[in-house]
């Protein structure tokens, strides 16, 4: 079979697996959160039902071309990340198109969907959408600074930008994981990961109470279906990235899912304990402890 055709098919397969897994995690997490909150909670397969329902809607409402394209950008961003990410170590098939670019490509490609989505939501003309984006952008800049410091420390440690090489360098037992070889940078990354996941206390972007669901306010039916698909992929692929960077990657789907689940559970635990920050509070929070740790990580790697 043609090389590219084969690659494309495997990307599709990866996307499907990740969507299935992502929806399942959403359900399970929702269930657990509800139980902690003293409610019974929804069925763990509810996200599957929701997404099918949204795709199956017969009518939809549009505010214009950019509004229409927003979800397309958003999901393309998610799928693009899957495309450029080496998912399973040593697997020819599931390394996908990771030969097209290194870690920097992935870090910057994350904004592709976000930006497009923000534009689409902007055209809806809804002030809550704009407000949510403004908050989201502000909060993102704040956690990106410590995150960049930590990532640079790790890149400097391994002297490579290739994710595959970074994963390879961590093989041979958990003591070789970045988590243990570079704990300061790893803790910084995990702290900033809280912001990237957008759970409480950093969920003011979607702020379910004050500004009904933030940027996606105006989206419904198939548009929302696309957004939900992405919402299944995006946190998972971020988890894959962090597992690759911090926890030695994974050589099988099972290992990957376990590691990603554990990693993604950290924000969940924190979310049920801590109340929401206002956006200026969260900016300040990221620019205190995480920033200090990030600088420490850099200094450690500079003077090694």
């Amino acid at each position: 079979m043609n090389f590219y055709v084969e690659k494309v098919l495997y990307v599709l397969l990866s996307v499907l697996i990740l969507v299935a897994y992502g929806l399942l995690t959403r359900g399970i997490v929702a269930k657990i959160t509800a139980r902690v909150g003293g409610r019974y909670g929804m069925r763990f397969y509810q996200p599957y039902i929701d997404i099918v329902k949204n795709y199956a809607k017969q009518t939809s409402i549009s505010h214009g071309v950019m509004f229409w394209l927003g979800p397309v950008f958003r999901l393309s961003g998610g799928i693009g990340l899957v495309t450029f990410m080496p998912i399973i170590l040593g697997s020819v098939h599931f390394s996908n198109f990771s030969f097209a670019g290194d870690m920097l490509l992935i870090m910057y490609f994350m904004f592709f969907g976000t930006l497009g989505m923000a534009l689409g939501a902007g055209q809806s003309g809804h002030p809550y959408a704009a407000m949510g984006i403004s908050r989201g952008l502000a909060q993102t800049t704040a956690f990106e600074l410590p995150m960049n410091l930590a990532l640079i420390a790790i890149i400097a440690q391994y002297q490579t930008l290739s994710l595959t090489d970074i994963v390879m360098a961590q093989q041979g037992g958990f003591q070789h994981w970045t988590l243990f070889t570079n704990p300061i940078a790893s803790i910084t990354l995990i702290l900033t990961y809280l912001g990237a996941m957008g759970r409480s206390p950093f969920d003011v972007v979607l702020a379910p109470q004050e500004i009904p669901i933030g940027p996606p306010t105006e989206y419904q039916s198939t548009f929302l279906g696309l957004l939900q698909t992405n919402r299944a992929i995006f946190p998972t692929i971020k988890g894959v990235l962090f597992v690759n960077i911090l926890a030695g990657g994974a050589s099988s789907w099972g290992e990957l899912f376990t590691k990603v689940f554990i990693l993604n559970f950290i924000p969940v635990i924190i979310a049920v304990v801590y109340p929401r920050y206002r956006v200026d509070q969260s900016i300040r929070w990221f620019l205190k402890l995480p920033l200090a740790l990030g600088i420490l990580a850099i200094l450690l790697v500079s003077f090694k």
Partner: protein
Amino acid sequence: MVNALLFVAVPLGLAFLVSTFKNVKLSCKFIVLFLLAFVYASFSSFFAIGGFSEIFMFSTAGFKPPLSIAFGMSYVEAFALILVSVMSFLFFTFSKKYRDGLGVKFNTIFLIFIAGINGLILTQDLFNLFIFNEIALIALVGLVFSKNTFSSYSSAFKFMIISSLTAGLFLIAITFIYNLTGSLYLKDILQFITMNDYKVSVLIPLILLFSVIIVELKAFPVNGWALDLYETANPLVSMLISTVLGISSLVVLYKLTPMFSNFSFVLSVTFLGTFVISNLIAIKQKSILRLLGYSSIAYLSLVSFLIVNKSLFGEQFYFIAIGLLITHVLSKTILFFLSSYLKNKDLKSMSFVRQNKILLFAFSVAIFALIGLPPFPSFFAKWELIYTLSVSSSFVWIGLILLGSLFEAVYLFKWFGEIIKSKDISESTFVSKIFNMIVFAILGGALIAASYFLKDYISFASGLYYIPMYIILGFVLFDAVLPVIIKNTVAIGLMAYYAYQLLPTLSGYKFFFAIIFLIGGTISLIPGYYYKGKREGFYPFVMMMFFALVGLITSIHFFDFFYNWELMTLGSYILILRGKKAKPHAYSYALFSIFGAYLMLFAIALMNSETLSIAFNALSSVKINSLSVYLLLFMAFMTKTASVPFHIWLPGAHSEAESDVSPMVSAILLKAGLLGIVILMLNAGDQKVYGFSLNYILSWVGVITALSGNLIAAMQNDAKRLLAYSSIGQLGYALFALTFMTHLGWLAGLAMAFNHFLFKSILFWTIGGVYLRTKTKNMYEMGGLISRMPLSFISVLISIIAVSGVPPLTGFAGKWLMFTAVIEKGWYLQGAVAAFAGIIGFLYLFRLIHSIFLGQLKDEHRTIKEAPVSFILPQYIFLAGIMLFSTYPGMILRPIGKFLTKYFPNNALVWGESGTATSFLGYWNGSMVMWATMAIFGFVFIWLWLTKGKTQKVKQFNIVFSAERPHRPETTHYAYNFFVHYKRALGFMFVPYVQNFWNSLTGFYNMSADLIRKIYNGNIQAYLMYIIGVVAFVYWILV
């Protein structure tokens, strides 16, 4: 050769004759005839002289000096006579209206004045010097009295008292000297003094003579009388004081200087001090005549300094003196003549010059010639002055000259801006008669013509390329005649032809910058078609700017470079000034540019003093001062790249410029600074401070600039200010990357510069187009324009993705290279700050596109049209460029990498066959990313298309607005103060520290100017005390 005695005898005789006339008109005819003969005689004397050392002596009554009245005529005297005769002729013919009411008396006094001045210039005898001085000064008092106002009486009276004091001192000095030498012949005195150096008996008369000289030459602080005269006399008489009397004083100084070889340091300090202080105080002046007085004093002091240090300059002394004097005489004549039309005396009242093109031309030429911008004689003279001083390592003098020149630029630019941008045209007594026009046209034209002849006396100027100057001149001549459509087409054609001719001959970084300047320049002229009418005053300067930019590239040494740098400043300053509210911003642009230019000049002087070369590659052989040279040049270029702390001029200048000028000055002009830095770094190499890399510090300057530019951009409500701050940030990145001095760093820097050139042009064109339609730059007043201006929206959309560095567009190349270079270099902290700045970029980019194009459409914009075609067309040309370079980044990165390998061979990118670029750290395949992204996008698009069901388009207010109804677009559009929470969180980062710093600096200068100004309290007793104080002080330090 005319007998020199006639220069005195004829006006004196005519004065007696004329005083008997009843008929004023007849007397005037006689005088005009005499003046014509005077002009002819001085020219013929000048040409009769064979060489610099030749002097013709004339004596009276068959006696030889010292017994006779000895007159001497050499080049110096003859040249001075030429200036005096021409100026007197101009004065007399121009002052007709003023003279008419005053009758024969005025004519008599004027002739006596001329006789006195000529005697002063020609005499070679100390006592006669005294006599002619008294004659000239008494006649001058008469001329000042002629104005017949209380203040002119008062100032003339002060002047008489001052002159009697100096006359007394002068006479005592003469007595002493005659007693010592037994002769009053200058030659004998000089001989005696050189033989009896340092004797107190010689020193005392010399000190007295010294004080007379500094009073006559109006040195600080004994020049209060002169300022009062300038201010209160009729402006035409002030012109005589400034030019004719000034020249004669300089000739006297020239003759007496050899006696003062022991004093030369004191004299130099006095004159340069006067130059600096007068220019400083002039900043605070509100009255035109007093300002011109300060300016005259300053300029004459500079020439005096030159005369005192004549021996330093060799043969070039004459060239420099002529350059400075011609500038002074012609521009002061223009300005004083113009002042004679004024009804009020405040600076703005000069704005009547705008009612007539020739007046405006003459005024502008006078101002820019005084500032010393090319192509005026003073530019060449000042360059040669500094250059020659640098050979003798006189850095204190150079520093003082540059400081004084900077102050000079401060008030002249300010005044020019006030005149050009003042709301109303002031009233004046000007009547547009042919004669007046011709006078001003000749005076202005003479300034330009003089530079054409003078430039040949600078050896470096031989390489200057003059065709562009002719083209600019052509545009000036046809400016008022041709319509925009023709001028624009010609301009585009010329630029394209220039590009076609020049580009194939260039390589390396020169080719890179030539693409930006020439291709960019050509395309950026296209929006000009939008404008109707003649658009006067645009094309000469746009051509000047672009040609000067290209001149920077083709320069072979620092003279060319500096010449083009200043020319570029002049062109771009006027272009920026054209904007409606651009006055203060163009002003601060001009000041920072001039400041940078003088830093550059100082650096060139430092370099030349050590290497005796001004070639670029001499930078590498600077040893002792290498750090200072490097830093000064770097700062000079930073003023152009607008890096912190030299950035404060940029936001206003770029945002207030006209819609099609903003992209020129932002996307193209800023790269001149980068070009300078490239030349500097390639030639000077890495600098060490105590073994510590200087570039490490400069890299922090780069990232702090990037961070603050982006942060402040996010807080702007004005779209063009936002883009302007964004330019600061983007250039900060490029600067940061260049400081790495590695292959990857430079590749990143140049790639980002190129990218900035593309997207910033597009963004300024789109926002300019939007502004033309909405008439506002405030983003919150717009909104929802996507439906009205979809083409502009697409331009902005693609450009902001290119800015942000999000793959698959070009911006990512720069970011990828930069971070690879950061890791290679090990500058992690700076790298993280740069990344932070990059993320903050998203804040303003989103704000820009959202507030203008998305959200709620305003009622008043419902019928608005798409931006003009002439603005859309260039955008799409550049968009095609962005898409092309995004898909095939190798097209631009590979050639840059190739020439960089020459300078930085290590760790270059390796290009694979499929277009994968591999660095030592990572890899990236731009084409693959582009195709993959396109494919995914297409796939999702089709997926949505297939599953979307029936889509209904709803109206603007049809949104889910929890239990409320949207009231108006204004209250529903979330745009004002978009990132208020960010400000709340990080308020301390938005304090304008740098702005405050510059404000307090200018505050300090203003305050000191004000303090020093107070010594001129108008009290004659105080003025006398100053003179006596100076005598005592000089006695104290010398004896």
